């Protein structure tokens, strides 16, 4: 008699597991298809697990008050061959010791010979959550969609893959909602972020004391902003060792050819990244005018084509939004993005005075492609930048 597993069903789109709160039948009971068997509770609602077929409850493997993932086996139902076949749930009978296969002789331990290619098991078929059928790919191309656009579709196909029916239902559903055209700026930012997100990105951060910088601003003419100081400090640090800004392509590290550093400027419905070329070769005071000019051009959406692109890292001053912390995403063609948080009063231990003293500090963050550098290298680079920023007169 075939045994059919009782499976924790998909109880809702965002439900990954459910807690067993009660059994409505006992092992040995005869049940019908669709009959309620087990009470379960999710963080959203109480529901029941129903019988996949008619038969006799063989056993429950699930425990009361335990939580089980969707797809987990909760028990087994003994059913007739006809019923199992009707469900398309034919399960091979357990191999009895002594059974011999005509080809795999004497497999008494119950293991079956699997087809192999050079020793590897062959996947049963092209399926799984990441599988996109030729038709689905063709429709996505037609509509200009990428795989990231499918993230909101719960797939109903084998192993959760999105079938063409799921996709068409999703598209039809979208058409019922309010739809507006995304600006070309939005689309290009989205595309850059999607491409960048394919990499393992990591983040480190540390506070930096801004008192020396603010003191310097009082005397310097013209006055450099904190973001430009950070940019120049990064350029100086990378000029000493450009390896952290390298890009990994296959098994090669591509080193930067010049220290061109971009900085993020918020523009309508997106972000522009104008670039200061050879930022390591000019002093901070000489960068102020070109920096201010680029900011104005960017805000006016009037950047010339050669003023963007080709930079090896970006500085973003998320502190202008009042944010102390952020984890920015580097541009897809870059490994690094340096972030500067909002300045704030903070207590600092003065060991000479033996007391806390108020200072101005801000968080400095570095987001990086973890394939190229590790936390240690990122931390050393960030420390180097922080040290340079505490001596703005040297920049």
């Amino acid at each position, binding site marked *: 008699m075939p045994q059919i597993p009782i499976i924790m069903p998909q109880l809702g789109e965002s439900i990954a597991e459910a807690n067993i709160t009660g059994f409505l039948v006992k092992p040995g009971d005869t049940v019908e298809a669709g009959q309620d068997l087990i009470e379960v509770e999710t963080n959203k609602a109480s529901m029941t697990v129903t019988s996949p077929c008619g038969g006799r409850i063989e056993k429950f493997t699930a425990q009361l008050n335990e939580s089980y993932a969707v797809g987990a086996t909760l028990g087994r139902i003994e059913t007739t061959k006809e019923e199992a*076949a009707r469900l*398309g749930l*034919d399960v091979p009978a357990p191999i009895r010791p002594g059974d011999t296969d005509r080809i795999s002789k004497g497999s008494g331990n119950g293991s079956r010979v699997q087809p192999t290619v050079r020793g590897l098991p062959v996947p049963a*078929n*092209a*399926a799984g959550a990441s599988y996109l*059928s*030729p*038709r*689905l*790919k*063709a429709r996505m191309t037609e509509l200009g969609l990428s795989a990231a656009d499918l993230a909101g579709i719960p797939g109903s*196909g*084998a192993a959760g893959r999105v*079938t*063409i*029916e799921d996709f068409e239902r999703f598209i039809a559903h979208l058409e019922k909602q309010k739809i507006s055209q995304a600006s070309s700026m939005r689309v290009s930012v989205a595309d850059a972020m999607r491409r960048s997100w394919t990499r393992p990105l990591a983040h480190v951060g540390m506070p930096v004391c801004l008192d020396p910088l603010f003191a310097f601003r009082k005397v310097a003419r013209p006055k450099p902003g904190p973001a430009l100081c950070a940019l120049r400090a990064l350029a100086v640090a990378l000029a000493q060792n450009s390896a952290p800004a390298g890009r990994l392509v296959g098994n090669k590290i591509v080193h930067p050819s010049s220290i061109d550093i971009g900085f993020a400027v918020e523009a309508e419905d997106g972000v522009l990244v104008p670039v200061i070329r050879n930022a390591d070769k000019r002093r901070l005071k000489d960068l102020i005018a070109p920096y201010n000019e680029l900011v104005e051009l960017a805000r006016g959406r009037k950047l010339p084509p050669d003023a963007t692109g080709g930079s090896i890292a970006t500085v973003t001053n998320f502190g202008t939004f009042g944010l102390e912390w952020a984890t920015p995403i580097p541009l897809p063609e870059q490994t690094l993005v340096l972030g500067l948080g909002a300045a704030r009063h903070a207590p600092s231990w003065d060991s000479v005075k033996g007391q806390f003293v108020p200072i101005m500090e801000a968080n400095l963050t570095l987001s990086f492609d973890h394939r190229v550098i590790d936390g240690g290298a990122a931390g050393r680079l960030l420390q180097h930048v922080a040290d340079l920023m505490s001596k703005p007169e040297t920049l």
Partner: protein
Amino acid sequence: MSITYLEAIREAQAHALRDDPRVFIYGQDVGAFGGAFKATKNLAVEFPGRVLDSPISEDAMVGLAVGAAIEGMRPIVEMQFADFSTVGFNQIINQAATLFWRTNVPCPVTVRLPFGGTSGSGPFHSQCLETVYAHYPGLIVLTPATVEDAYSMLLEAVAIDDPVIFCEHKLLYYHLKAESLPSEALPVGKARIAREGRDMTIVTYSAMVHEALEAAKELAPEGWEVEVVDLRSVKPIDTDTVMASVARTGRLLCVGEAWPWGGVTAEIIARVTSEGYGLLDAPPQRLNAKDTPVPYHPNLWAAHRPTARAIAATARKLLRL
């Protein structure tokens, strides 16, 4: 009145003999005996001198027919079983199929092949040779699945100037019935949507059309709407109808009673994957007889050929992919 598939074949031959004096029937025991399956019953009496018994030599039967065709006749050759047509294979593929291309002289020979498995018929009386003949340029290969098609397609076979391999399924001879003979029909080379569906396309022909329809019926209560395409003619194949159906459903299952190595089901899948790759939402599947000679024992035979159960099981896997 009701008429069987076999009677429709007899009626079509009577019709052809009546309409066209160039038509004659040639085969083993087709005359006074009326043929191995009685497909020419009484025709020798009705059309004296035009329903002729041949020697037990398929080679000679086809050879004579080719010669008669060259002289302007339109012969119908009856093989007792498709399996034995291989004895006349040389005449069919080397002479009949190539004649027009060599000489510009048409070769309007119709070779009737009673084919396909029936319970207990075994390896020599069950074979499906449509895939073999379809391989050769110059031949038309017809595989009617209904009484109406058996009648109208046989009439068309006789009228066609090319040699036609007319594959009539023995399993359908007595069981398949229609109320009356058709007055009009789809042309040869045009497939038929035997059942409309939304979720999957089954492409098949001849007796397997009925197994596929049965499978579609079995799947309906589970919520699946399966489309069944009856090819009618396996050469030429109506690729357009198949492609249009796959465009609607996104899933393809090809079913044939012939063996799996190459053949009609493989040809359909090759065409759909190369010309309609972007239509497929799942890998196309096919179901054929097992790759062994056809077994005698009824239980083995039932396991050897695709049945409605087996088709439904394969379809379920494909639908759930």
